[in-house]
């Protein structure tokens, strides 16, 4: 008789607008810091771009990686490799047969710096000056390919693309790889490096970015009545997932379980979430059903909540729709208020936050909520972290993406 393996989290890694690793990022999040800053470049004047700030990495990769690695990898892959090295070390550098080790690392946008730099080179200097590493650097599977090379992960290397849900979908797929018996250990997460003037101009053109140029740290304000769009962030989050049996056998420290994965699509609009929240509700319900956890045991939700006028409330109503009166005891955190929106990295970083929230029984705060939207019908953790109850508790991390992708991951304490 075979049973489906339980999947646990044994390692965490990140590089984010709040810090160059997980401990510094988590401490800054608990302290309610913002990673948003005015951009120190001339893009706004030079290209007439209406948004002059973003949440850039706190520790630039050239402070961490040697020059040949910097030249060989797009920033999106650099961030993923930095986070992977931390996560792998944090997991105790497990000894695992490469054929039983998988990698799933997503990016929402791919190697946009490489793509556009090569295009600039072609136009300025001609086709013969375009470098031979251009394609392996710009392809959206480049980050996961480098992670696979780094660790010798040969059970499979996958890059699932679903815009801002990509990082969470990667973790969901990694869970499936372990449950289906394809791997014992999978390194999974998401990465994004798209703070380039073209995507900034394009997101601004779609009116999804906050234009609070005079006060960047106050710009990302999910559920505040004065919210006016998201703040573009960048970075990567990586988790080491393992079958519980494999983790037990090597005496690994276990942070939490990924007990349920819920996926759905809206099939409604290329950017707008379906107004009734039906797709989001089905994703959360699927995650609950997959885990076997009762709604009553969910005490924390890390919301997708990007600080857009429409999106935040649809999600809040969906959470209420799924959990009903059990939503009353849910501590809701919108950590993009601090990190900005890491796009393909967001779902992975926020899963790390949900895992740490359960591990340390601390729900991180939501900052900048001066005047909560009166239509918000949930208990938002504001300004200071909140202690979560002892015992077996569960958390949900929601991630939604342009295109109508909905991912809910259900995390439980150990």
């Amino acid at each position, binding site marked *: 008789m075979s049973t489906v393996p339980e999947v646990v989290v044994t390692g965490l890694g990140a590089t984010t607008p709040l810090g160059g690793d997980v401990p510094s990022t988590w401490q800054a999040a608990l302290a309610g810091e913002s990673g948003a800053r005015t951009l120190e470049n001339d893009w706004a004047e030079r290209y007439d771009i209406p948004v002059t700030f973003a949440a850039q990495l706190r520790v630039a990769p050239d402070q961490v990686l040697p020059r*040949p690695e910097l*030249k060989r990898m797009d920033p999106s892959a650099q961030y993923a490799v930095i986070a992977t090295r931390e996560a792998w070390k944090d997991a105790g550098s497990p000894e695992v047969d490469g054929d039983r080790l998988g990698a799933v690392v997503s990016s929402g946008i791919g190697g946009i710096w490489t793509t556009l730099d090569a295009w600039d080179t072609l136009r300025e200097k001609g086709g013969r000056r375009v*470098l*031979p590493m251009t394609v392996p650097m710009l392809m959206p599977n480049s980050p996961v390919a480098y992670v696979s090379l780094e660790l010798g992960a040969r059970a499979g290397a996958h890059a699932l693309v679903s815009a801002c849900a990509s990082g969470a979908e990667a973790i969901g797929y990694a869970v499936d790889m372990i449950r289906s018996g394809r791997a014992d250990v999978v390194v999974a997460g998401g990465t994004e490096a798209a703070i380039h003037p073209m995507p900034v101009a394009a997101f601004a053109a779609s009116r999804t970015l906050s234009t609070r140029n005079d006060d960047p740290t106050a710009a990302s304000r999910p559920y505040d009545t004065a919210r006016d769009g998201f703040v573009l962030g960048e970075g990567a989050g990586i988790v080491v997932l393992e079958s519980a049996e494999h983790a037990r056998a090597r005496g690994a420290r276990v942070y939490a379980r990924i007990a349920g994965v819920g996926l759905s699509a809206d099939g409604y609009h290329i950017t707008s979430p379906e107004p009734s929240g039906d797709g989001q509700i089905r994703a959360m319900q699927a995650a609950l059903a997959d885990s076997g956890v009762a709604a009553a045991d969910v005490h924390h939700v890390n919301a997708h909540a990007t600080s857009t006028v429409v999106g935040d409330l649809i999600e809040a109503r969906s959470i209420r729709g799924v959990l009903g009166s059990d939503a009353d005891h849910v501590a809701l955190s919108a950590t993009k208020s601090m990190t900005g929106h890491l796009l393909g990295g967001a779902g992975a970083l926020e899963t790390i936050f949900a895992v740490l929230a359960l591990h340390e029984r601390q729900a991180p705060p939501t900052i900048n909520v001066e005047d909560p939207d009166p239509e918000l019908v949930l208990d938002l953790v504001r300004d200071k972290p909140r202690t979560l109850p002892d015992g077996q508790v569960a958390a949900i991390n929601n991630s939604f993406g342009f295109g109508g992708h909905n991912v809910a991951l259900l995390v439980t304490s150990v």
Partner: protein
Amino acid sequence: MAYSEQEILAGLAEIVSEETGLPADSVLPEKSFTDDLDIDSLSMMTIVTLAEEKFDVRIPDDEVKNLTTVGDAVSFINGAQAA
């Protein structure tokens, strides 16, 4: 304006050093790109592309396989710019 052999060696060493992380002063004429400097074909083509730009020469693909050592490349570039 033509570069001297010494200038070509120094410029090439800088490109190889950037690509590989090896110190520039270890990129000597007798060193083999593959055996001594551990440069794979993709890195070699990167070095060729950057050298073409730096020295304003063409290094045809058919020639690249003949450039076994750093010295071979220096000689070829020197000849190509003279031509």
